[in-house]
């Protein structure tokens, strides 16, 4: 193989695929980045069998071929190379790869390319197109609610549900649940799949275009692929049945509060400073007389109390929550005001932006005596 390409493009591609490099693995080949040169294109791939990323860039190909190069070193050296143009050539005899840029020259040992599990370009009967800004929004607004506890794997992923022209993303750790809905411009097949949170976060990080573009989702039985621009990402799915989240959302509420998002968030963050030490990170909210009194009490440290004015409709309620679960959602609400809906001190409550019916967050209270 013998090619040359710009440093900017190569660096972008390497930084994109390196997220899929395996770190701790008994299979050394997975720590490598696969380079394949063909028809004026250079394709980079990395996979750890959980996620696989491929990125294609333009390059001048003098001699086509494939090599696998140690991901860790390639990534660092590409970032630090001095010139604008990078030349890469491989020699089959001594199994090395020569990387040249300006006066700098590196010779890296190659890994056996025939052992690399090459990612196949996704194909599937079920293909769905979504705009990347929609997908990014779906991910960012929900995936933070996923569980990190590996003992119940089903909650470590987000549920992507597409039904005709509706698309939903749901994430829960059984104590809180975030759901975001959106519309597709067109009718498609219905699908339901649980995608690992790690991969969704990675996807949201890679989709950084300024102009909305199409993301093509290819669904298969055991994996899902997202293709956009010159990149495709393949992920394995989490197996199992996602619980029926509609049952968790209370159909009606006895108390509805409208409150300023920023004032509320700042107050909750301040009060929770004293709560943080305990296991449950508890803050108490008392809604009455058109204000909310937020308190926390840590016997070892002290107490905090703050009042924020609101409009309270319905019964007066006193309720306690895990402060982290409250601040997590407040950070994701972009509207000026939000609606906090409650029933009783021991039944789930809902928090959602005032102007957005498509976003909802259900939070279960903490029992305090």
């Amino acid at each position: 193989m013998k090619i040359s390409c710009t440093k900017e493009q190569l660096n972008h591609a390497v930084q994109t695929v390196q997220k899929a490099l395996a770190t701790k693995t008994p299979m050394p080949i997975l720590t490598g980045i696969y380079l394949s040169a063909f028809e004026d294109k250079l394709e980079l791939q990395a996979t750890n069998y959980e996620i696989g990323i491929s990125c294609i860039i333009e390059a001048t190909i003098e001699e086509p071929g494939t090599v696998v190069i140690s991901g860790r070193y390639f990534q660092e050296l590409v970032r630090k190379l001095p010139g604008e143009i990078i030349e890469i050539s491989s020699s089959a005899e001594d199994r090395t790869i020569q990387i040249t840029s300006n006066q700098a020259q590196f010779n890296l040992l190659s890994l056996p390319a025939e052992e690399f599990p090459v990612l196949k370009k996704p194909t599937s009967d079920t293909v769905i197109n979504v705009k990347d800004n929609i997908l990014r929004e779906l991910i960012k607004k929900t995936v933070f609610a996923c569980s990190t506890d590996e003992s119940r794997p089903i909650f470590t992923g987000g549920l992507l549900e597409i039904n005709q022209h509706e698309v939903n993303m749901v994430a829960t750790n059984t104590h809180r649940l975030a759901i975001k809905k959106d519309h597709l411009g067109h009718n498609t097949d219905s699908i339901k799949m649980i995608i690992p949170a790690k991969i969704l976060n990675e996807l949201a990080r890679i989709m950084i275009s300024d102009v909305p573009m199409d993301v093509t989702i290819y669904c298969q039985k055991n994996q899902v692929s997202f293709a956009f621009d010159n990149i495709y990402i393949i992920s394995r799915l989490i197996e199992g049945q996602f619980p029926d989240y509609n049952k968790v959302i209370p159909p009606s509420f006895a108390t509805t509060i409208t409150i300023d998002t920023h004032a509320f968030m700042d107050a909750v963050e301040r009060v929770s400073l004293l709560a943080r030490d305990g296991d449950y990170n508890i803050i108490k909210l008392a809604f009455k007389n058109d204000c909310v009194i937020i308190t926390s009490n840590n016997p070892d440290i002290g107490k905090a109390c703050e009042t924020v004015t609101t409009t309270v409709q319905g019964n007066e309620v006193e309720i306690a929550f895990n402060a982290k679960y409250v601040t997590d959602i407040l950070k994701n609400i972009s509207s000026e005001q939000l609606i906090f809906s409650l029933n009783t001190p021991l039944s789930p409550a809902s928090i959602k932006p005032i102007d957005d019916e498509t976003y909802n967050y259900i939070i279960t209270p903490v029992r305090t005596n």
Partner: protein
Amino acid sequence: MKWTDIIGHKDQVTMLRHMESSRRMPHAVLFAGPKGIGKNLVANVVAASLLCSDQEERPCGRCHSCQQISYGSHPDFLHIAPDGTNIKIEQIRMLQQELSMASFSGQRRVCIIDGAELMTTQAANSLLKVLEDPPGEIVFLLLAANKQMLLTTIISRCMVIAFQPLADELLAQDLMAKGYLPETSEVAARLSSGRMGIALALLEPEGLALRNQALEMILKLMDSKLEAVWHSAGVLEKMERNDILEFIKYVTYILRDILLLVTGQGKQWLFNIDVAEELCEVADMWSERRLVTAIRAVETARRALLANANTRLTSEALLIRIYDLAREV
């Protein structure tokens, strides 16, 4: 990797092949049998054939899956082996995490747990859940040298297949077929008690070093003064515990061979056939009764060492005993 690579174990192989070809492989199989007997090879062949995509002959060695297995990079072939001295709960947790995801190929997976008896109790208990209710299609192959050390709850969830040592002649023949010299193959086959893995280790350069050391020590005890005891005990003290146990095993073998010679059984049953002459020379010094006593003393020492007795004291006591027994009239 092919079925024909497996030496012996005919019944087991026939049964496994039959289960595989009729697609009736149980989801958990426990291979029980001494270390070095070939369980791992059989398990690998079973795994390869379960994952192979060929219609006729599995494993075919040509398809994508077979190639990935030979590179050691098959995504649906999981292999767990002791990390240090145990299989730890983190390893089983990693396995559960891996299994929570759909298989890479969308088809079945195979998981080999080598040294299953070395799982910590916590790890074993954590494995129970997946073993009882495996997510998706998966076949677990557990390999254990000491089945008794496994939790009964694990054993009861597996189909147990016992592996026996191979016949010496079969082993020797195969070693010769592999290109080893007939004489050394013969010795290795006899000393390994029918275990291919051990026989191959013995055929390595220096593979017989411990045996030779044991022989040298016994010969020395017989023709020199009591000083030999202190010298040899000093050597033994510096060895690793496993090496000492191995060393003691060879002492037993050598005494047993002398016993055969003393009782006039002829040379054909000797383990240490390569040093038969040296053994014949010292055989006159011994009587049947004293040899049996000596072998008992070795066994007592072995048990003491297994129970963490002091190496120096145990080996001195043993050597003095053998020294005395060799001179008793």
